[in-house]
């Protein structure tokens, strides 16, 4: 299916759930409201015209320092979907505010979401409700802070863990 047709289909089906769409550089993107997200994801996977069987990537971006978006919702969780049958791609973005940084989980639809969401939790602190085992993926357990947030300085040193010398 053509990218623009996918966006139109989503817009017709979910109406106000799709906040905006764009196709910058040929990547068809839809910004989805958090409440509509589980239905949108399920529709994307199960509808035979879309058939997005592969959740290629799940990540987040912190827009705190982005000129022009400092006042808007702080995070955006980004889903990259791919369909093996139709060979088309889609990007979905969900704006999430800092105070209420939770998003419904996608683990039931794609098992890989388990680890991708754990990484987003680790790096950004965005909680995924319904996730079976939300713990850090890359950093050690005693680490405090969310490294990929814009207010975490890159060269902050934390005390070394492990056996004391």
């Amino acid at each position, binding site marked *: 299916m053509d990218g623009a047709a996918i966006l139109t289909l989503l817009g017709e089906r979910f109406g106000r759930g799709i906040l905006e769409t764009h196709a*910058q*550089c*040929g*990547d068809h*993107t839809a910004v989805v409201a958090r409440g509509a997200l589980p239905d949108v994801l399920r529709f994307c996977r199960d509808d035979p015209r879309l058939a997005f*069987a*592969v*959740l*290629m*990537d799940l*990540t987040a*971006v*912190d827009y705190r*320092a*982005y*000129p022009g978006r400092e006042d808007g919702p702080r995070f955006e969780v*980004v889903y*990259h979907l791919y369909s*093996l049958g139709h*060979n088309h*791609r889609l*990007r979905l973005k969900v704006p999430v505010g800092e105070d209420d940084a939770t998003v419904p989980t996608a683990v039931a639809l*794609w*098992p*890989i979401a*388990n*680890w*991708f969401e754990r990484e987003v939790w680790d*790096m950004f602190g965005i909680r995924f409700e319904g996730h079976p085992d939300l713990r*850090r*993926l*890359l*950093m*050690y357990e005693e680490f405090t802070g969310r*490294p*990929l947030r814009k207010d975490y300085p*890159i060269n902050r040193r934390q005390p070394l863990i492990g056996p004391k010398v």
Partner: protein
Amino acid sequence: MPSERPTTTREFMLGEGAGTGAGSQNIHVGVGPAHPAMHGIIRIVTELDGEVIVNADVEIGYLHRAFEKECERGGWNNAIPFTDRLNYVSPLINNFGYCAAVEKLLGIQVTERCQYIRVIMAEISRICDHLTCIGASTMELGAFTVFLYMIKAREFLWELVEDVTGARLTISYGRVGGLRADLPAGFEERMRAAFKQVREVLEEVHRLLTGNRIFMDRLVGVGALSREETIGYAITGPLLRAVGVSYDVRRAQPYDVYDRMDFEVPTQTAGDNYARYLVRMAEMEQSMRIAEQALAEIPGGPINVDFQGQPLDPATYVDQGKQGKTEGLLLLPITLSPNLQGSERPAHARVNAPDKRVVLPPKETAYGSIEGLMNHFMLIMEGYGIRPPRGEAYFAVEGANGELGFYVVSDGGDRPYRVRCRPPCLPPMAALHRMVEGEMVADLIPTFGSVNMIGGELDR
């Protein structure tokens, strides 16, 4: 609480139940992180019932080096050395993937010769990756000879890569808008010689391994994952092709000049470790095929640095420019020092996009004219530099392990706002516990080896 305490030795040894102190219970064996077969940095806490793995909890992150945050620190081209160290066995593919994502955001098209060179170097890198993967995983099974042969073959390719890029492993060869330099003179013969050696080694390894009783016993039927689970876990690359799905980014969404190349995408159906081994061996031959075709078709012909008139040495050239004697300076040929070989003005234009906002001018122009100097300045100094338009782009290339995607977000400034690398070996690692459930402990080793986990890419 047991109703009667075991009184005989036999009752004690054969008693049932966990935690009663008189029976069998599952034990937890931690494999890694300091373990040779875990490539140093994975911790798998296995719960064993005898020899059978009941549960495996994979813990990663021991090589997290903050790639994504480091990319936000410097300019767009400054991220390239960090991308080298993602999948450090096939660094050229990472370089080109990142550069392609930024070029997509900028909307610039690289020159045709540059695309051909990218294809050749990416395929050479892919062969290096598969050689290392098969070599290391067979060494862990005990076949040390194969490891030595594969590393020998890899050395020939690394010498080739060193001729082109200047380094064996961390090459930083791609640039946004092109490459660091053109191919050196004599590359064609050297590539043919290297491929001849690699083919001989692959032939030997085929004879040693492919029909080998022990090898097959250890790999056939082990570590298999069903097709649905493979797709559900977003696994791509050789592991997906081993279950019969012939998804290859080079075929599905061709980039550079892959649409002009004639190659097969090898697939198997069993989905076990042996199928993955066969897919990788076949892919190496296909990669050599692609590289040879690309070399035959590459435009611009052999590099012929032909000087007409008197060549000038660079020191004199620069002095003349500084003294203001710039008349005709741009037209004079100069002999540059060897470490700029391949990036002189004629070669530079062949492999770099003609976009002044993105690509550094060649050294003759930078030293020989004020426009070149200013151009250079505007691209290097802080606050200036490459400025892609605000927005985001995702570009996927076929890495050695699968789809390597780069998602870049720009705020219009000279530093990336966010660079995300979609690691192709994270999905198989997430699915590893499914692959080894029900297998025996020793089967963990070939399964892990066939996943080809590369720490730099997994943990970024």
